[in-house]
Structure formats: C-alpha cells, structure tokens
C-alpha cells in the first residue's frame, strides 16, 4: 500500500508543479506593484508539492526499512540480512531512489522559498516560482516516465540481491544527500536569477535574497565533497584522496561555479556591481549541477556511481539539460542587455580582486570540464583515452596559484578603489612567507614543484586570512566577517594538508612472514598474525598489525580483505592510525606462495588537514549565513518597531517628529 501512496503523491506533486508554473507565469502579466489574481496559487502549490514529494520519499524509505520485496527496486538493491542503517541508506544507493531524493530536496527547497521568502516583489517571486515549477516538472516526468521507484514485481522476490559492498558504508549515509541538497540549492539560485532577469529586478535587495541559498548550497557542496574525498580515501584502499575521477569532477564543477557565484553575489549585495555577471554565474552553477547529475546518472560514465546503464534515461536527462540550460542562456542573451550596468570600480579594489578570482575559478572550471568531457568526445571517434592527474594537476594549478595569491590580498583591499602602497607591509609579509617557506623546505631535500608551491602558499594564506582582523576589536567584528576569515583559513589548512601529503608521504610495500617487522618513518609495523573473520554479509581475512612509534607501546591495526557474497565482490578495508600530525594507512594484500603476506603501509603526514580544512571552510560558510540572517532579523525588527512607533504617534495625533539635521 505504501508504494501506491508514494506513487500517487508523486503524480499529485507533478500536477501541482504545473499549477505552480502556470500560476507563477501569470504574475508576469500583472503591472509592477499589482498582483494578478491567478498568481496567488503559486506559493501554496509549491508548499503542498514539497509536502507530497517528501511523503513519497518517506514511503520509499519505509519500503527499504521493511525490505518490501514486492517492490522491484528493493528486491534488486537490498537484502533482508543487511544491517538496518544500510537498508535505509540503500534507499538512495540506486538510480531511482537517488533521483527521488533529488526531486524531494528540490520540492522541499521550493516549498521553503515559497513559504518563507517575503522580501521579493510579487512579480519576481511569481517568475521565480514558475521557473522552479518548470524545473521540478521535468524531473517529475523523468521519475514517473523513465525511472519509477515504486514499480511492483508481478511476483515478490524471495530475497533481495544486495547492495554494492563499496556502498555499504556510513560515508554513503552522508555523502549523496549533502551533495544533492547542494546541487538542488543551486536550483533555487537558478530560479531566483531567472526570476530577477525576467522582471528586471537585478539589484542588491535581490542579491540579499539570493545569498543565503547560494551560501547554503555551497556549504553543503563543500561538506559533500569533503566527505566524498574521505570516503574514497579509506574505502578504496588506494591511499589517494582525490583521483580526478569524472564523478569527483562532477561534484567539483558546481562547487567552483558556486564559489564564484557566492563571491559575486556579495559584491552585488554590498556594492550593486557585477549584475549580469552574477546572473550568468547563477545559470552556470545550476548548469554544472545538471551536468553533474547527467554525467553521474546517465551511464555515459561508468563508475561506482552509475547505477543504471540505460541509454533511454541518459537521453532523457540530456534532453532536460538541453532544455533548461539552452532556455536559460537564450533568456540570458535576450535580457542581459536590459540589465543596467552596476556601479563602477577601479582595477585595484576589493571588487577587482573578486572579479579576478571569479575569472580564475571559471578558468579552472573550464579546465576540469574539458578534461572530464574529453574522453567522452574521443570515444565517439573510437579512441580510448583516460585523463588523469598529469593533466589536471598542472593545468588547474596554473590558474589556482594566482587565484590563491590574490585571495590572500583581496580581503585587505578597500571597496571601489584602493592604492597598493597602503598595503606595503601586508604585501611584503605575504611575499616573504611564500618565498621563505619554499626556500626553507627546499633546503631539507628535493620535493616536487607543486607541493612545494602549495606549502609556501598555505603558510602565506594562513597568515593573510587572519590579517583582516588586525587592529580591530575582536568582539566587534561582524559574524559574517568571521565566516570569511575562517573559510579562507580553512582553504590554507586544506592546502597545507594536500601539499604535505604530496611532498612528505612515505610508502612501504613488502611481503612479510607472520612475526616479521617493517620500518616506515618512525613506525615499526609488526605482522602478528592473519585470521579469518566474518561479518553479517561478508567474510574476510584480517591482519593484526602491531604499530610502535619510536619503540613505544604498540597500537593494533586490523586491515581486512573482505569478500561479500551478495553481490559477490571483494573490497579492501584499510586500517588507519590517526595521529595529530598525520595518518598511518595500512592495507593487506594476498598471500605469496611461500606463506608471506603482502602488506602495504603509508605514512601520510598532515593528510587529515585536508578534511579539517574542508570542515573549516564549511563552518565559515555557516557563520556567514548566521551573520547575514541575524543582521536581517535585526533590521526587520527595527523596521517593524519604527513602523509601530510611527503608527502610535499617528494614533495620538501628535506632530511628526522632525529629523535632526
């Protein structure tokens, strides 16, 4: 019964999306300042639609929790023997379920926008909701016509066929929902941008409405990418934390666009400049989300993320992609000229620095995009290539390095116009740090160029990130400024982790007899024994490694080579020893014919800083949202109080107070 309720809820939600679209479009017919009678249905439609879509998702969640094997989706992706938590996370560990999650979050954010956003003019709001409804409708159609999650089997399956063991991990519980919420948050930014463009309301007030959505989406994308990177690091057992895998790139590209958009929205809100540029980035950011969804879900890329290889679905998403992106750029091309130019600024100014960083981010985006699509293009000509770190690392660094340098200086500059001479001390300090650290590190040995530059930049950036606080009373610094400081500092921390991992990692690969010891850095690793172990749906061989640092007390690590039986597959479970200054990473391999076991151990100094940095960046974003929202609440309260007082005065019939000159 639950499945039928879910399906009915989806169809109703789709119908409401049509209502929202049509009703919202009528708002455009009203003269400015007036309200069209037919436009009043858009907001309720969005709210009820959100409720229905969430209900549909809850129904699917319930079916997975109870392992309802009469559902095709459950039977082919779940198993009654799985732990409950992985039954639940398995809901979105497949194509249909993940698309339902996508649509659920889309409808929920549309509902929140319709329910709580009262600052925008009604015309702009109507246009925004119409666009949002239009986007949602496409995805309802995709779900209902091409990937129905609630399809019943004619005969219930006796047992489910299980979930890909790589996905049976707590990382799966966090990573996809956060990324999706981020992708979809950008859909609201897109709808708002289109709404503002259609009604010619591109101004600071609009930017202040847009900003929390962009910030929120950006925070979620940051967390999603950070979690995904850590998941790949410990689950794949290869010791790397970023592989430039197309699927990773698919999540990185919206993040790059959202980072640019977030900064450009701030300029629009504070200075009323970069109007068309902001709209363009809004369209671009959501395009990248859509492209990411297309790449990951259509099966053009085959990876752990591509659940279903079905050309029909690929074509459907490609069609949606073409429709929305093509439509958006057409409207942009037609209307952009009508957006009046914003306030001007000098090249050396905070706006100038932000524009520079925006351009660099877009260039990195282009590099990543072309590198990701290139293998698909050559495949059409029957040439198989793969593009990896030898391309991505240097090509993106060419733009990332100037961007990081400007990022160190940018927050110190004044709005509108500034003189470099004013910042002599800061500039000298940053230059000295970059050069000093690089010189110092090269003194101790030969290291690859990029990690070396990374170390220098990380040191300079860490100090520069704190410089905006210099000479200010820390208690009086606005929360949003703290957000910026912490986020920039987080970038420095992550960069430091990446550079250390690249420059100082040590690796030891050996065949060891039980009882034998291998030395790596300060650590002596002893193989105490290898035993078979069993879990709820897997068996494994497990090595007991005793790790002693400088002859100290041993710590036991237990890496495993697991064999799952449903579906049959083997994975390598790495074991990690986390110290404040790095991680020891151990993997067990096969047994050689002479009875020795293959052991691979890495010492990765400060590798954890990569993810600490990611968390700091997200925290900075959160603080920024909190700061903006609290300022907005205070402003609203003050306005309300002022209105109240004026009304009281009017009621008393007293003379209006004369403003003091």
């Amino acid at each position, binding site marked *: 019964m639950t499945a039928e309720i879910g399906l009915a809820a989806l169809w109703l939600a789709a119908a409401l999306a049509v209502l929202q679209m049509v009703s919202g479009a009528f708002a455009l017919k009203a003269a400015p300042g007036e309200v069209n009678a037919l436009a009043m249905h858009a907001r309720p439609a969005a709210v009820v639609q959100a409720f229905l879509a969430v209900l549909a998702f809850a129904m699917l969640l319930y079916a997975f929790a109870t392992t309802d094997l009469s559902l095709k989706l459950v039977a082919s992706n779940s198993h009654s023997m799985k732990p409950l938590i992985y039954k639940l996370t398995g809901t979105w560990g497949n194509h249909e379920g993940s698309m339902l999650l996508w649509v659920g979050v889309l409808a929920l954010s549309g509902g929140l926008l319709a329910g709580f956003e009262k600052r925008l003019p009604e015309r702009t709001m109507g246009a925004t909701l119409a666009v949002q409804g239009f986007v949602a409708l496409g995805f309802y159609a995709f779900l209902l016509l091409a990937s129905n999650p609630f399809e019943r089997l004619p005969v219930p399956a006796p047992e489910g066929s299980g979930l*890909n063991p*790589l996905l049976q991990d707590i990382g799966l519980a966090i990573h996809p929902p956060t990324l999706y919420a981020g992708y979809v948050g950008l859909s609201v930014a897109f709808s708002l941008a289109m709404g503002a463009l259609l009604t010619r309301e591109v101004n600071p007030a609009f930017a202040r409405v847009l900003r929390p959505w962009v910030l929120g989406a950006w925070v979620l994308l940051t967390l999603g990418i950070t979690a995904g990177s850590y998941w790949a690091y410990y689950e794949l057992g290869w010791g790397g934390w970023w592989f430039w895998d197309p699927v990773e790139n698919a999540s990185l590209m919206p993040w790059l666009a959202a980072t640019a958009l977030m900064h450009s929205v701030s300029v629009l809100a504070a200075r009323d400049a970069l109007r*068309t*540029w902001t709209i363009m980035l809004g369209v671009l950011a959501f395009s990248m989300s859509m492209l990411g969804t297309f790449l990951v879900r259509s099966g053009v*890329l*085959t*990876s*752990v993320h*591509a659940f279903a*290889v079905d050309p029909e679905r690929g074509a459907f998403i490609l069609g949606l992609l073409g429709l929305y992106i093509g439509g958006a750029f057409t409207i942009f091309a037609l209307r952009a000229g009508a957006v009046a*130019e914003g306030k*001007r*600024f*000098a*090249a050396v100014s905070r706006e100038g620095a932000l*524009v520079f960083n*925006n*351009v*660099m981010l*877009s*260039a*990195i985006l*282009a*590099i990543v995009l*072309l*590198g990701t699509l*290139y*293998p698909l293009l*050559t495949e059409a000509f*029957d*040439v*198989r*290539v*793969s*593009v*990896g770190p*030898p*391309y991505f690392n*240097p*090509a993106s660094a*060419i*733009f990332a390095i100037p961007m990081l340098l400007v990022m160190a200086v940018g927050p110190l500059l004044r709005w509108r116009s500034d003189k470099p001479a004013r910042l002599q001390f800061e500039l000298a300090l940053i230059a000295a740090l970059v050069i000093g650290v690089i010189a110092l590190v090269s003194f101790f040995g030969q290291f690859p160029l990029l990690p070396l530059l990374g170390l220098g930049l990380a040191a300079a950036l860490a100090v520069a990130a704190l410089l905006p606080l210099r000479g200010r009373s820390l208690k009086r610094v606005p929360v949003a400024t703290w957000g910026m400081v912490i986020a920039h500092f987080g970038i420095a921390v992550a960069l430091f982790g990446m550079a250390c991992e690249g420059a100082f990692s040590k690796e030891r*690969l*050996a*065949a060891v007899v039980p009882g034998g010891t291998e030395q790596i850095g300060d650590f002596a690793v002893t193989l105490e024994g290898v035993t078979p172990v069993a879990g709820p749906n897997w068996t494994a061989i497990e090595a007991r490694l005793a790790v002693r640092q400088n002859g100290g007390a041993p710590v036991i690590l237990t890496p495993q*080579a697991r064999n799952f039986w449903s*579906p*049959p*597959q*083997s994975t*390598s479970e790495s074991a990690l020893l986390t110290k404040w200054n790095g991680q020891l990473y151990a*993997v067990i*391999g*096969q047994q*050689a*014919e*002479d009875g*020795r076991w*293959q052991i*691979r151990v890495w010492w990765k100094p400060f590798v954890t800083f990569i993810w600490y940095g990611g968390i700091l960046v997200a925290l900075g974003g959160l603080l920024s949202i909190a700061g903006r929202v609290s300022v907005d609440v205070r402003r609203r309260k003050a306005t309300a109080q002022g209105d109240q007082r004026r009304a009281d005065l009017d009621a008393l019939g007293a003379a209006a107070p004369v403003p003091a000159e």
Partner: protein
Amino acid sequence: MKAKHQRLVLVIIALLAIVGAGLLAAWGLRNQANYFYLPEQMASDPPAAGQAVRLGGMVQKGSIRTEADGVTVNFMVTGNTADAIPVRYSGILPDLFVEGSGVVAEGSLGADGVFVATNLLAKHDENYVPKELEGMGTEQAAKMAADTTVGLK
C-alpha cells in the same frame, strides 16, 4: 581605468581567460591524455618510453613470476595476435588476478621494452575490467567489458 566601457573590458578579460584556459586544456589534453593500447598495437607502434598509457589484454598462461621480494610480479600480456608484452608490477595484486584473466595495466613502457605498471585493474571473473568498471556487479561489468574492449576476445 576609463570608466566608459567597464563592462566591456570585464567581458573581454573574462573571455580571454576562458579562451586561454581552453587552449591550455587542448594542449594539455593532447600531451597528457592516457591512451589505451592493445598488446599488438603496442608491439607494432610502441608509445614513447616513459609516456603514461594503459595496456589491456589477457595474462598469458604460465607467465606469472613473483620475484624474491614477494611483491614484484612479472607477467606477459597478450591480445588477439601472438604479440606479448612483458609487464612488471610492484604492489598489491587485485583480487583473483590469475593466469588467463583480463587485465588493464596503467603505467609506461620502459626503455628495455618492459611495461612498468603503476596500477593493475582486474576483477574476479574472466572479463577484465577497466578502471571505469571498478565497483560494478559482475554481470554489468562483463557486459561493459564486452562493450569497451572492441576486438578483444
């Protein structure tokens, strides 16, 4: 800056940067893309020594030799013809990497004609599975391997 055409100047700067990025990407992709070779292709038209490429084929029967250190393996990879490429790999072998199984080796051809692999991609069935197929179910992987390895039995 002359304030007159600021928007135009910004657009031109942005376009220049993006076009620059595009050109750089095109150049980088031509030089750094990692080409896929079958053993017969590698024998007849070998890539430059040290260039990163991928080699895909079958592990020849009776060719796997483990060196005394216990972690370095030597084996031959064959394709549709009699050509066989010697491969050396140090590291943890993929599960059930056996003679007669399919394999994709990432690495580069050494000056001595031995392909030095930095990474081996294989799976526990008779079809070899390129990187893109890691983590898929056996059936899907077999289907995909058939699609992606044209001309190889």
